[in-house]
């Protein structure tokens, strides 16, 4: 078993600088993982948003592209069969609906190929499989590393160790459907007892039962004694540990009463909430003294942002309470290129945010401006310069550039139609309810439709 590569010590500073817990998280509160066997040259990095992920020697996150169904066909890769190559697609694939295949793509002259965006993680001629790491053959005869059968890639969007701008995992990562077939981070198994699961939600990596139902901790407990007894047990159920369950790492077990054992995570006894009727609920945290439990929380939002109650739950908002929106876009091609960031064609976004008019787009979906010296304290949130006329990255020194906030390297927006705090009038604005060429509210807590996770 090899936890870190031989390059790891050399990268320690970079990893510490960019992949350490954000200020709002308590030291050490990072998700742990199983130390699975890895080939040399690879490592596991603890990232702000996705927890532990596999990375190459530079610390750049590795991604896979599992096949996913869309309206009229599949995109992505099967195990052992990488398809991302140097083909330059010129027309839509017709995977989506109602528009037909064969439409000429925007900005063809500068359109990259799949491998220019997703460099394959090539394997040497003498590379040997290790555990779930295998070597697969590319169509051009080259060899490529794969994990769990899926070919591995890095993303040109990732600039620093710990960046995960190329994709997400869990429910946020998705796997086909109306949002396209995205790349997902390659990650080692989470190191938790079998009856638990960790789920990516907008507020962090949420600890829950394997069924998805949230677990909670109680402020009045100690590390070894539960103070939820009597009437308390009508509303909260201790998460019991089996007879053969063993303590390990962050996980301990107490004996509530003779023969009745209860799980604890990081010295917090765990419960489920009887009234929860949906998975990944955050409702129990409304009860005084009770808290959801996270393997790790999302980094703190930059100054000037706040959590706002809305009719859809809690959303991220600007200082005035106006809802923040994320723009989603994957094109209708066989290589499923993202069009949701300033390095990609802006024609899609301009169509739905301004009818093709950049000025109207700026007025309808204004960028969230950042102060000149704005700092976020995390890599999840950065301030970037945008050319307001094109929506692309501004040229260095460009006089009219807008300095704006970006999440995962993508600008965030407000909506001019939201006239008061708590309105989410543009949630779902754009194609496929905002999932594809459209806007979704930056939902943090959604008691209604699972939009926040």
């Amino acid at each position: 078993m090899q936890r870190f590569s031989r390059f790891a010590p050399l990268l320690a500073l970079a990893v510490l600088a960019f992949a350490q817990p954000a200020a709002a998280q308590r030291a050490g509160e990072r998700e742990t993982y199983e130390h699975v066997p890895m080939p040399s040259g690879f490592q596991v990095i603890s990232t702000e948003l996705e927890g532990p992920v596999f990375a190459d020697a530079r610390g750049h996150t590795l991604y896979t592209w599992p096949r996913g169904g869309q309206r009229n066909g599949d995109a992505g890769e099967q195990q052992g069969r990488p398809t991302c190559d140097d083909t330059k697609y010129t027309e839509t694939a017709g995977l989506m609906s109602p528009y037909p295949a064969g439409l000429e793509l925007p900005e063809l002259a500068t359109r990259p190929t799949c491998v220019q965006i997703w460099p394959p993680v090539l394997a040497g001629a003498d590379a040997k499989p290790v555990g779930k790491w295998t070597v697969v053959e590319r169509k051009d005869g080259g060899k490529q590393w794969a994990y769990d059968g899926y070919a591995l890639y890095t993303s040109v969007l990732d600039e620093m160790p710990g960046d995960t701008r190329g994709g997400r995992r869990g429910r946020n990562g998705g796997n086909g459907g109306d949002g396209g077939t995205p790349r997902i981070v390659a990650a080692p198994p989470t190191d938790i007892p079998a009856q638990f699961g960790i789920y990516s939600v907008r507020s962090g990596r949420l600890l829950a039962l394997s069924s998805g139902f949230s677990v909670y901790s109680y402020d009045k407990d100690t590390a070894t004694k539960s103070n939820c007894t009597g009437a308390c047990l009508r509303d909260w159920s201790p998460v019991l540990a089996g007879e053969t369950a063993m303590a390990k790492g962050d996980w301990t077990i107490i004996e509530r009463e003779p023969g009745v054992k209860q799980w604890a995570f990081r010295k917090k006894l765990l419960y489920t909430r009887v009234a929860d009727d949906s998975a990944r609920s955050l409702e129990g945290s409304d009860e005084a003294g009770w808290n959801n439990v996270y393997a790790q929380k999302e980094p703190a939002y930059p100054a000037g942002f706040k959590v706002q109650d809305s009719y859809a739950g809690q959303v991220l908002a600007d200082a005035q309470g106006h809802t923040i929106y994320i723009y989603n876009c994957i094109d209708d091609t066989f290589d499923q290129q993202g069009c949701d960031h300033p390095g990609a064609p802006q024609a899609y976004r301009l169509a739905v945010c301004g009818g093709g008019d950049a000025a109207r787009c700026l007025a309808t979906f204004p960028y969230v401006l950042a102060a000149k010296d704005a700092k976020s304290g995390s890599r999840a949130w950065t301030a970037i310069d945008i050319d307001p006329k094109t929506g692309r990255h501004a040229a260095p020194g460009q006089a009219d550039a807008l300095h704006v906030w970006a999440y995962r390297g993508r600008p965030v927006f407000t909506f001019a139609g939201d006239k008061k705090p708590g309105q989410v009038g543009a949630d779902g604005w754009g194609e496929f309810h905002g999932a594809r060429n459209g806007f979704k509210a930056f939902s943090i807590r959604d008691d209604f439709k699972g939009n926040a996770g």
Partner: protein
Amino acid sequence: MKSNIQRVLIASGAVFALAAPFAANAQEGQEVVRDRSIAYVMTMEEWAMHKTPGAKAECPNGMNEGPREQFKVLFPENGPKRTVVGTQLARESQIYFPEPEKENMPFKEAVGPVVPGVNLDGKIDADDFTNADGGKGIDNQFFRVIGCVSSYRDVAALMVTKWRVDNSFNRVVIELTDVDDLVNDPDVTVTTYRGLSPMLPDATGNGYMPGASQKLDMRFGKDFITSFKGKIVDGVLTTEPADYLMPYQALANISTQLFRGVKWDLRLTQDGAEGYMGGYVDLESWHAQRQESISTHHQSYGQESSPTVYKALKRLADGYPDAAGQNTAISSALHVRFTQVFIERPAKATAQAGSQNGISR
């Protein structure tokens, strides 16, 4: 003249649906008007329309065409090279930033003269409809827009009710307070809320049992709370108009719809209520809600073309003129059905918690 609700009950056969549960509650002797209040949860909604077999009477020119059919006409396969920007995105631009003056696709308007609904303005105008009982002055211009669009009829219409009962974002609860008599009471108050509790299906699976509880959403659902002054005459509740923001959900997509000048017209019993929610659909709210709920792909199933429908909405709008005299809303009516519930109010601490436990900052 029979009331609107009487007409609805007879036409839909809903008498039987309501009568059975009434008997059940009566047998149990359960008192459902408590502390001078009674509440109901919405179990069915459909746009009030005049429907004939094959839509032959109301759509003499046939049904409208949708995005797929229009795309073929606008951008023929044997025409100039089709591009994403010149076709798909051009059409999506017209959906989100419609220019009715440039929209030239044909539209087939539904015709009356018999259409259900509510007399919203108290007048009998030339373009008003007559209901099946001969009642005049029915304000339902929205019917002209959607009556010949498949999305709003039959199976597609049933989905709306399914989404209404399957989800809690859009669960509508009404509470009547100051109730002294459920048959005749000159002064009651009707308040709308969002309910959070699952519905209680009956043994058939097609209906809902009265007597269940509904927890009110007093935290995130404040925008959906509206009060109406009303009266009950011979078991029929009618109200004064008030604006109402209604939560909507289609599939997993949420949105809201602003209705202006809503009037309720409901026959009440201890176990349920049925009738109309009449009001003026705010056009911009409607247009945004429709796109956010039902994508172009899904609208294609029901041959609903958003740019073409929007042009018709603007042309037929009949209420709430802006400063330039352009009407901003269109008269409409929803046929609705409710089942009696008992309200569960959240503890004050939770309702106002605004808790951010577990949330970063």
